[in-house]
């Protein structure tokens, strides 16, 4: 399981936790999140989000 950080606003997506409040189940891999998904904090899109693995 990995974590991804939004380079715009520092929002963290943790694959282990998912985002149940948005219907993304715990354990959902980054690549399995739809391309139309946007950062819940700043609205940046997945591709330009420049998310980087932090561990």
């Amino acid at each position, binding site marked *: 399981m990995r974590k991804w950080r939004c380079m715009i606003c520092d929002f963290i997506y943790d694959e282990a936790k998912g985002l149940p409040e948005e219907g993304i189940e715990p354990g959902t891999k980054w690549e399995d999140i739809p391309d139309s998904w946007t*950062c819940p*904090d*700043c*609205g*940046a899109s997945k591709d*330009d989000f420049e998310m980087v693995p932090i561990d």
Partner: protein
Amino acid sequence: MAATSAPIVIVGSGHAGYTLAREFRKLDEATPIHIVTRDDGCAYYKPNLSKAFAMDKDADGLVQQPPEQAAAGVAAQLHAHTAVASIDLDAQRVVLEDDTVLDYGQLVLATGATPVRLPALGPDAVSVNTIDDYRRFRAALPEKARVLVAGAGLIGCEFANDLVAAGYSVDVVDICSWPLPRLLPEAQGRALQAGLEALGVRFHLGAGIAQVADGTATLDDGATVDFDLLLSAIGLKPNTTLAVAAGLQCGHGITVDAAFQTSASHVYALGDCVDVPADDGAQPMPYILPIAHAARALAKTLAGERTEAALPAMPVIVKTPACPTLVCPPLNSAGHWQVEGTAPDLEAVFTADDGRETGFALTGAATKKRGEFAGRMPPVHRVD
């Protein structure tokens, strides 16, 4: 895209200006972009200004990219520390205060907003709306200082939380009856107040500041509050001076259509300077999410395909860890709140007078229900 396309000129280097430039560069790598800014042109994320202590960062630490790097990242020519002197709509030309003349194919105003100032707060009151403001604020903040925050709105409460958690003594004064009165029903405002009070914040509500002298504020009700630094967080006013001078139509902010075009052709605007074209009435929405949606659509328009921005319901996160709060502001205040739950875990839905649910607010553990509530809300602007 041909490299000969006439340049795009963006006025403003805040989140709106850079987000638009970034989105545009995904579609067009060739058209020249000029970014004109009164600031230094660095890239930073403004919402972090009111949680910098929690992030253990100072002003420099909040800079994500220095000016040259930020401009290079979107292949733009940066005109920093430079104001626009005038806009000639007919000639499609912008003149800068240093007499530089920029011809534009398309012009984008991302001029932001300015904190409202109240004369009663005196000349020494500090307000924070840019990273330079924040740098001055931190430099003027003595260790263990007593900070008086004028304004119990979103920014005032966020700063109060960040400062008290960092060990500062914090008083908040506002003429309103509970925090965030325009965004939250009383029960949730009280929950937020209780959360901040538990950290040591002292609230003085129902009275404004009558006058300030020698580090003491006298309130309307005669009470006094001593302080070392007065932080003014009364509200924001869209920066429309340039637009008005150019003859562009303005309301509270710059008037734009659903594609964020102003009343002039080839001229667009987005961010805190505009009245967001909401279906329930255009109005300023000085938050982050509208910028993301506007920038994505406007980038397409600038690249040649006029695109209206579909604006979904856009919840605003209030960065007050003392009482997590999320609000999707009702766009029309005619209606009523219905609140359920036990404080601080409260969920509230705003029902407009016509019976539609048009807003919600969640506090405490209820903030986890964000997705469920957001899905119930109508979009801010529907595109068919």
